[in-house]
């Protein structure tokens, strides 16, 4: 094992086009999508029959049959069956956290290569039986005689047969993510216009990226879908302005969040390929970037003053401090667009003098960023956001971006910052640097 940790290389990635829920992938399971995405990665990098160090992935919405999801995907893929795998789950941070786990093992010399990412389907989400029905069914299962079973069955009432459909809501507050985000948006005074503008730019950037072939080696079509079907290349601020608010409607005229500036429920999967420089060289694979460092933060959104999706606001200054960098030292910023307002509130928090002093404990705020460097090939508002898949999408995208750019100001290596907010008041952030 090397005495000083080495940096893990990002070699590339693969994802399937993201599809709006109950659409093109309505019949695809998490396992189908993850296996296909893994096979697409194997095809792109010629890894058929290869034993990798590990495959780490996860899903936020999981059936009980998915208990060993990633390992099953490996077994169904063209990778050598001797490739170990495990599942992780950190809500929308899953994919990036998986990449950090793999990168850390590579850095320590415990593995030479790995795949990280995630998958989610909002179409094939598990539908649970409600708690009353569950109790009766468990009792029936335990009954010894037929008579006992019939007696128990007779006790069923219509209300018990209604399934529990999963809701995108926080268990501790009962509020949906959108409602939480709306509160934060109001707090930071994020305007409707700014949100619509961010959404329109996201669509425009992703469409342009497809046009110039940027996604040719990042995406593999699936079930006949060749591009993300949420993408609206002709999206505009004018069109977005006509939509009615769907979150924060309690604020009346101050409600700003619409279906256009919030991500839709989406199905999809994304993976990134990581390895040591040596492993990449031995396999004649390109090193696009190195994962420099990462940080995860959590906030008390239940009792404290922080918003549900604001943990990255805390994670980034900690990461910058450790790396000796400022917020302006980046050529690219990949800030996950859970909602346009989340991105804008995050940027405002970093610019705010009071917030820096009172909440972040800093003498000065991090400052503002050059917006032309933000989500330059689009982000979740355009592509969609299959929860656990977003991290894999962003890691591969940013690695390619810094690789293309090569060097930044003063000839230093091009650098990018990833920031992903997650349910449960968590946030995962990381730095990639061109190889």
């Amino acid at each position, binding site marked *: 094992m090397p005495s000083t940790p080495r940096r893990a290389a990002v070699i590339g990635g693969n994802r399937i086009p993201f599809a709006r829920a109950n659409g093109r992938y309505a019949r695809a399971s998490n396992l189908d999508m993850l296996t296909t995405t893994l*096979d*697409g990665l*194997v*095809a*792109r*990098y*010629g890894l*058929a*029959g290869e034993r990798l160090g590990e495959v780490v992935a996860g899903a936020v919405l999981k059936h009980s049959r998915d208990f060993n999801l990633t390992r099953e995907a490996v077994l169904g893929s*063209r990778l050598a069956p001797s490739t170990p795998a495990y599942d992780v789950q950190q809500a929308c941070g899953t994919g990036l956290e998986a990449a950090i786990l793999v990168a850390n093992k590579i850095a320590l010399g415990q593995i030479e290569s790995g795949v990280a990412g995630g998958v989610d389907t909002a179409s094939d989400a598990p539908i649970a039986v409600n708690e009353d029905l569950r109790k009766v069914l468990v009792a029936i299962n335990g009954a010894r005689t037929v008579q006992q079973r019939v007696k128990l069955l007779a006790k069923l009432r219509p209300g018990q047969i209604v399934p529990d459909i999963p809701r995108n809501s926080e268990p501790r507050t009962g509020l949906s993510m959108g409602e939480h985000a709306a509160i934060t948006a109001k707090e930071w005074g994020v305007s409707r216009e700014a949100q619509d503008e961010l959404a329109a730019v996201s669509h425009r950037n992703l469409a342009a990226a497809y046009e110039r*072939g940027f*996604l*040719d*080696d990042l*995406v*593999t*079509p*699936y*079930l*006949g879908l*060749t591009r993300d079907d949420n993408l609206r290349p002709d999206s505009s601020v004018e069109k977005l302005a006509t939509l009615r608010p769907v979150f924060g409607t309690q604020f009346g005229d101050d409600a700003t969040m619409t279906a256009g500036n919030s991500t839709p429920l989406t199905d999809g999967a994304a993976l990134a390929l990581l390895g040591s420089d040596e492993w990449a060289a031995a396999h*004649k*694979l*390109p090193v696009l970037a190195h994962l420099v460092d990462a940080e995860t933060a959590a906030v008390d959104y239940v009792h404290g003053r922080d918003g549900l999706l604001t943990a990255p606001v805390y994670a980034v200054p900690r990461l910058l401090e450790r790396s000796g960098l400022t917020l302006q030292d980046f050529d690219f910023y990949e800030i996950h667009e859970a909602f346009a307002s989340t991105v804008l509130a995050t940027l405002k928090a970093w610019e705010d003098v009071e917030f820096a002093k009172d909440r972040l404990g800093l003498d000065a705020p991090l400052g503002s960023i050059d917006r032309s460097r933000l989500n330059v090939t689009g982000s979740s508002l355009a592509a969609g956001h299959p929860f656990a898949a977003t991290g894999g999408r962003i890691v591969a995208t940013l690695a390619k971006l810094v690789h293309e750019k090569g060097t930044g100001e003063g000839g230093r290596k091009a650098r990018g910052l990833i920031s992903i907010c997650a349910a449960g008041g968590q946030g995962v952030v990381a730095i990639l640097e061109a190889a």
Partner: protein
Amino acid sequence: MSTDRFRDLSNTALAGRLGVPRVPLLRRYEPGQPLLPGPALVTSVGAGRFAKPIAALVEESGQQVLDAVGDQKLAAVVVDLTAATTLDDLAAARAILTPAVRKLAPSGRLLLLGPEPAEASAGAGVEAAATAQALDGLVRTIAKELRAGATANLLVVAAQAPPAAVDSAVRFFLSARSAYVDGQVVRIGVPVGSPQDPAAMDSPTLPEKPLSGRVAVVTGAARGIGAAIADTLARDGATLVVVDIPAAGENLAKVANRTGGTALQLDITAVDAPERLIAHLTQRHGRLDLLVHNAGITRDKLLANMDPDRWKAVLDVNLRAQLRITEALLGEGTLLQDGSRIVCVSSQSGIGGNRGQANYVASKAGIIGMVRALAPVVAEKGVTINAVAPGFIETEMTAKMPLGTREAGRRVNSLRQGGLPVDVAETIGWLGQADSGGVNGQVVRVCGQSMLGA
């Protein structure tokens, strides 16, 4: 893929009693299959230089070689006529061939070797040239007369070509790999490049893996003929880079994974396509031993109704992209090396023309022009460039044709059936071998001796 029901029905007992002509089931290559399923007659008229080494080649493959026709059925008949210069020599050939064709087994192989007419005339006069040219007509006629899937082909060999120059062609034409190549004339010259496969320097090439160690690019490999080419080249030992448009990526990934290759999603008409292909090859392999330009599209319209978009789309994919990519690779200078091969997929329509396909035909004929013009240029680097011109091949494309057109297309050839994608693939595999350097600037038709454009 559409199945040939007529062929299957024609092979039933009832069809036999009704006198329906039988559509033969062609013998096709499978790994491990011997070169020939039975004995071969190998002989010559006059002092041909090739009969002996060919007899040795057949014997080495484990098959018996006869020098005269007897009672046995013959799996192959090889007559070396490279020394034939007179009409008497031609009569001697007839004397050998008449009893021999009667003994030819189903899916049998008749292979003639003859001299280059122009060379013959310079050396031995006009009668020699006439004799040489007579072989051309003779082999095309024998191909039309043979039954039960047997084929006849002619190798026209340059006077300067050493005996070993014909080996790879002889192996191809005798084996089941050439099932659907019939009535063809292939010229063999002094081999281009070293016959020693630079890709296989470290490990000797096994007979059943003639492409081992070779890096091959196949465009349009997500389906149809391109997918079959990828499968066939991989079976023969090549390392594959399969290319297709990003929208075809789902299938392309499957082809890459089953061949153990890499998938490169790339529209070959993109401005930076040559650059991206070169970057991929440089990063991943550092060499290119076989480039197969297979991607092709059709946008049919009578010329009277042809719009510029249809014209441009077809010419861009089928011809301009091939020109640009080939030029860029030759300019790049390191990937294509001594022993590298380029094979372009043309079409019999490019030779004979086809109603409603002015754009397609122009592109496919253009490929032939490109191949002929580049052959002497690439030869200087030890590289060859050839074209294959498929006839009617059973693919998704031909399955969509109206029944009448499809049936007509299938039957107007000497083997009375459509070919399979693998037949095109086998021909490309042969041309892609390092020891096929004697074949350069040629167009090999894979058409069962189709009447169209013949």
